[in-house]
């Protein structure tokens, strides 16, 4: 049964014409969508402003040409397979959001904790995308004659670069947050419209930049060797694992149940290939080429702010692309964060929770720390969230077998499933300790082992639960 929104939320929802999103019930057959929508949505969502950040970071990490191309090809394939065979079957079978399904397995109080972590991490990720858009807004406004003096953030900046930067980010974030509150249909529509054009802008940037490089082959662009100061040395395995696990929260972690629950068939999970090979392959490589020119021009202190790089390449059209790319990905990310916060407070309005998420993301966007350490942040973000997907996966396929009860918390009427709590927090705690204190393992490498560990711990822990028998 759908929870009723507060009166205030209802007025805002009416003003914004927000659609019914089936937050806490299975998506009915009448709301299912055809495959084309998912191909366009995935292409748009993963051809984002952050691709302008990640591509250069491979180059800064001293990756060689074979390691880059082979790692991206195989890593993205693993990601697609994860969406198709891990997330999509569960999503199309249950027709529920991750939060609704997890509550049935783990109990409401465990979901509260997950929703808090999920919402905050999504907000920081969206904040990084707001930052990216803001780097393009500055030269765009300067280009139309508005005299702005803003120091763009660079790889070494973790704090805001000035008051004018803060104001720009606040304005960009406010617009993005309000639009995100309209609901999934509207943001997906814009992403669908922009996707074909965006990928061509990425390609255009590379085509324009290549003649300006002092390189006769790809090996002279991605030379390998020592990384730039402050960057981790990246190898084939770094590239492969990052390409696979950068979206671990969505595929292994089942967050994209919120999206794929609208799919008529599980095979629509293949649509993720549009995002992986257009966004996480073509766009990353094109962005890397942009940064190669920046390194050539300023070898001692290359700046990786996407706005100025793209402006130098293709001008105002490129700035529009950076703004739109950041926006069309920030929106669904803020939307997911809003869903997560609403999961914590079921009687709350999704609109208000989405606006809250947008506000947190905007504040996070003021600090360049996350976008400038994006590879590390994405790694730990997937590591923290992905393990619950193993639990959902096993509940779906093993529930009712091997003596396990499907949807244990709902069946037993409990608020906390201790097996879920332990299975999630133990591997995550271990990984967070490594990330914060010892840093012996590059954070993207932690996601898949944490997922596996959570699955094994859940199987083991569930068998130890009292009265864990078939109903």
């Amino acid at each position, binding site marked *: 049964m759908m929870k009723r929104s507060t009166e205030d939320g209802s007025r805002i929802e009416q003003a914004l014409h927000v659609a019914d999103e089936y937050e806490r019930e299975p998506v009915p057959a009448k709301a299912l969508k055809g495959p084309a929508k998912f191909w366009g949505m995935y292409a748009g969502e993963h051809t984002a402003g952050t691709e302008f950040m990640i591509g250069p970071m491979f180059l800064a990490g001293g990756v060689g040409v074979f390691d880059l191309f082979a790692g991206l090809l195989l890593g993205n394939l693993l990601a697609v397979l994860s969406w198709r065979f891990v997330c999509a079957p569960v999503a199309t079978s249950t027709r529920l959001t991750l939060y609704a399904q997890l509550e049935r397995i783990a109990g409401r109080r465990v979901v509260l904790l997950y929703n808090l972590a999920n919402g905050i991490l999504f907000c920081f990720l969206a904040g990084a995308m707001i930052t990216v858009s803001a780097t393009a807004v500055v030269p765009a406004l300067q280009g139309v004659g508005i005299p702005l003096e803003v120091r763009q953030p660079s790889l070494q900046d973790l704090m805001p670069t000035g008051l004018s930067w803060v104001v720009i980010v606040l304005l960009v974030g406010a617009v993005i947050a309000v639009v995100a509150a309209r609901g999934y249909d509207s943001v997906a529509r814009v992403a669908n*419209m922009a996707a074909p*054009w965006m990928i*061509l802008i990425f390609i255009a940037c590379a*085509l324009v930049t*290549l*003649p300006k490089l002092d390189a006769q082959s790809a090996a002279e662009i991605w030379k390998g060797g020592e990384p730039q100061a402050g960057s981790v040395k990246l190898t084939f395995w770094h590239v492969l694992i990052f390409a696979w696990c950068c979206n671990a929260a969505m595929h292994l972690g089942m967050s994209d149940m919120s*999206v794929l629950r609208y799919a008529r068939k599980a095979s629509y999970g293949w649509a993720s290939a549009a995002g992986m090979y257009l966004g996480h392959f073509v766009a990353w490589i094109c962005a890397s080429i942009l940064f190669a020119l920046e390194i050539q021009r300023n070898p001692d202190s290359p700046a990786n702010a996407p706005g100025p790089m793209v402006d130098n390449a293709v*001008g105002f059209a490129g700035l529009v692309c950076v703004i739109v790319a950041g926006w069309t990905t920030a929106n669904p990310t803020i939307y997911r964060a809003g869903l997560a916060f609403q999961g914590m407070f079921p009687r709350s309005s999704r609109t208000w929770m989405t606006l809250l998420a947008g506000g947190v993301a905007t504040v996070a966007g003021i600090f360049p720390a996350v976008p400038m350490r994006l590879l590390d942040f994405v790694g730990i973000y997937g590591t923290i969230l992905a393990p619950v997907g193993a639990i959902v996966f096993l509940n779906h396929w093993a529930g009712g077998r091997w003596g396990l009860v499907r949807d244990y918390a709902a069946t037993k009427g409990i608020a906390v499933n201790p097996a879920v709590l332990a299975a999630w927090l133990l591997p995550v705690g271990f990984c967070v300790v490594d990330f914060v204190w010892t840093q012996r393992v590059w954070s993207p490498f932690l996601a898949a082992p944490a997922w596996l560990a959570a699955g094994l711990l859940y199987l083991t822990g569930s068998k130890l639960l009292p009265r864990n028998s078939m109903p």
Partner: protein
Amino acid sequence: MKVKHAAITVSGLALTCLTLLPPLLFAVGRIPQSTLEFLMLLGTVLWFASVPWWMRKEAP
């Protein structure tokens, strides 16, 4: 229907002739940077002006 067909034509031209072709021409030295930037901006405007007329309004 005629409007939709016209919009599709404009969108196609915007993508091919005004977004992908100018960088190729720039890369081989046929057009200067200023012309490249103008054509690509024109393509951007035409794309977003035309695509809503033919892209279906439903979304996932």
